[in-house]
């Protein structure tokens, strides 16, 4: 085994070695623990890094420094935040449904962690190599709505209820284009297994990879997926459920201290996992972006892509204002859903044509409905940049 392969498979080998050390009867349990523990350590750590990254990034976008007082360049800020969250008083409203109020963040974080079971974080690095991994991911993801409902309802707060209603309506609506745009990739890959979807994209023509995002349908599907993912993880510009300027914090308005931190964690972990799925489906998962870079360990590529996606989310958050509830719904049902179906058609065209024609056909199949729908959306409500008259 070459050193490149060793670096690539180091975690897998380590796990095998460790499991081999224990008695046979304990091996399944130890194997599970060794797989699970890194996941529940690495991703919260990534969450901590992301909070500081987000605050720094937003700061830079807004011409500020961002937090820079705790530790060198403020890198200890997440630690300070964590200590603060842990030591804060845990306030439960007197009228709240205490049991449900307690379980809502627990259920959320539990479900979000479950989704990590199928993510391929490197070559041979998925906790469970499930045959229908994509489906598993979406099924678990849909469960988070229950947690949101629990939080919103149990707080007995009108803002919380409004936030929960918004969140659930939004999540259910955007789940459809999310899954449909994923179906395009699944259709081309011909499998629901995430590892296999990655291996299908891991080939190269020349130095360029066969990622689905570099095809017309794949690019459109990727954009649709990312937009839906943004909505699904309640990120700006779809952060209506917590719409700070309207309903203050939405469904977690009545949470404080560590429970609030759990919600925060759940939200970010949801964002990571859905970005990871987007990477897996369209950006070649752990595959290197150029053929001459394949010597870099696969898990490094995965995390590099993940961080890039997170940075894009931060960038978008720093730029865009928020949509309104009805516009959000209109966008989901009148634009995203038809476009997802169009992309599906385009992917089918790609599947059954050859050579340059497949590029042309699938491109046209995407772009014509897009411009038509986009124009329709703008002119329907007469949205335009206006000309103004001036009085002397």
């Amino acid at each position, binding site marked *: 085994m070459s050193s490149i392969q060793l670096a690539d498979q180091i975690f897998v080998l380590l796990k095998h070695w460790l499991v081999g050390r224990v008695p046979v009867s304990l091996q399944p349990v130890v194997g599970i623990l060794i797989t699970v523990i890194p996941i529940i350590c690495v991703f919260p750590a990534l969450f901590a890094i992301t909070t500081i990254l987000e605050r720094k990034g937003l700061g830079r976008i807004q011409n500020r420094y961002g937090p820079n007082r705790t530790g060198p360049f403020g890198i200890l800020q997440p630690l300070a935040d964590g200590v603060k969250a842990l030591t804060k008083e845990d306030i439960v409203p007197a009228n709240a*449904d205490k049991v*449900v109020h307690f379980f809502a963040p627990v259920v959320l974080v539990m479900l979000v962690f479950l989704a990590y079971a199928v993510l391929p974080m490197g070559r041979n690095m998925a906790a469970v190599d*499930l*045959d*229908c991994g994509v*489906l*598993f991911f*979406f*099924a*678990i*993801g*849909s*469960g988070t*709505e*229950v947690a949101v*409902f*629990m939080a919103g*309802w149990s707080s007995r707060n009108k803002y919380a*209820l409004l936030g929960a209603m918004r969140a*659930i309506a939004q999540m*259910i609506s955007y*789940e459809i284009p999310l899954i449909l745009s994923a179906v395009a990739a699944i259709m081309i890959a*011909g*499998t*629901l297994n995430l590892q296999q979807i990655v291996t299908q994209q891991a080939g190269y023509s020349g130095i360029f990879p066969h990622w689905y995002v570099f095809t017309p349908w794949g690019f459109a599907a990727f954009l649709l997926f990312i937009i839906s993912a943004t909505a699904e993880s309640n990120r700006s510009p779809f952060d209506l459920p917590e719409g700070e300027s309207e309903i203050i914090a939405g469904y977690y308005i009545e949470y404080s201290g560590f429970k609030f931190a759990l919600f925060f964690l759940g939200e970010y972990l949801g964002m990571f996992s859905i970005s990871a799925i987007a990477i897996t489906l369209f950006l070649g998962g752990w595959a290197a972006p150029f053929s001459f870079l394949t010597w870099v360990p696969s898990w490094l590529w995965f995390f590099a892509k993940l961080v890039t996606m997170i940075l894009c989310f931060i960038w978008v958050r720093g730029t865009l204002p928020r949509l309104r509830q009805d516009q959000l719904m209109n966008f989901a049902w009148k634009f995203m859903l038809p476009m997802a179906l169009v992309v599906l058609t385009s992917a089918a065209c790609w599947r059954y044509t050859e050579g340059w024609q497949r590029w042309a056909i699938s491109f046209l199949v995407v772009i014509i409905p897009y411009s038509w729908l986009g124009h329709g959306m703008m002119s329907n409500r007469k949205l335009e940049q206006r000309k103004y008259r001036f009085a002397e």
Partner: protein
Amino acid sequence: MNLSFLIPAIILLVGAAAANMLRNLVHCVLALTLAFAGFALLYFGLGAEFLGLVQLLVYVGAVAILIAFTVLLTGGGTAGEQTVLSPRWLQGFLLAGAMFLLLGYGISKSRFTAHAATSVRSYPVSLIGDALITSYALPLEMLGVLLTVATIGGVVLAIREPRQASQSVKVDQ
């Protein structure tokens, strides 16, 4: 009886019992969600991954939320505590018992039972997919049409004449 059956079964039973016996309707809905999840786990235990996941996606992700919203919108969430036994508990018990007997009879007569122990193996999803769009294409399409009709019906029921919001302000001179 191994753990992989016992745990889902307990979850299922506890959830179902709680859904019946809790006194707050929203709690009942949450318990029902738990029961749905128990079902999904049972399917996993039987090796029917696909079915289990669909159960999760549809029942936990959509149906449970739908019921929760129905309860909320009809005021059940704030209607106060319900009594554990409804006035018509006897009819309910009779109906449930009859249903149980019927199902039990059906299962005991079924020819699947003989093979149940050996059939625990997972089917690849592609087989299910192939089956759905080849031999079961017509039922699938019919289901689709049925759902579409149901959706349209729901929309027709739910749609209201948009109330003239802007006209509710009268500007007199």
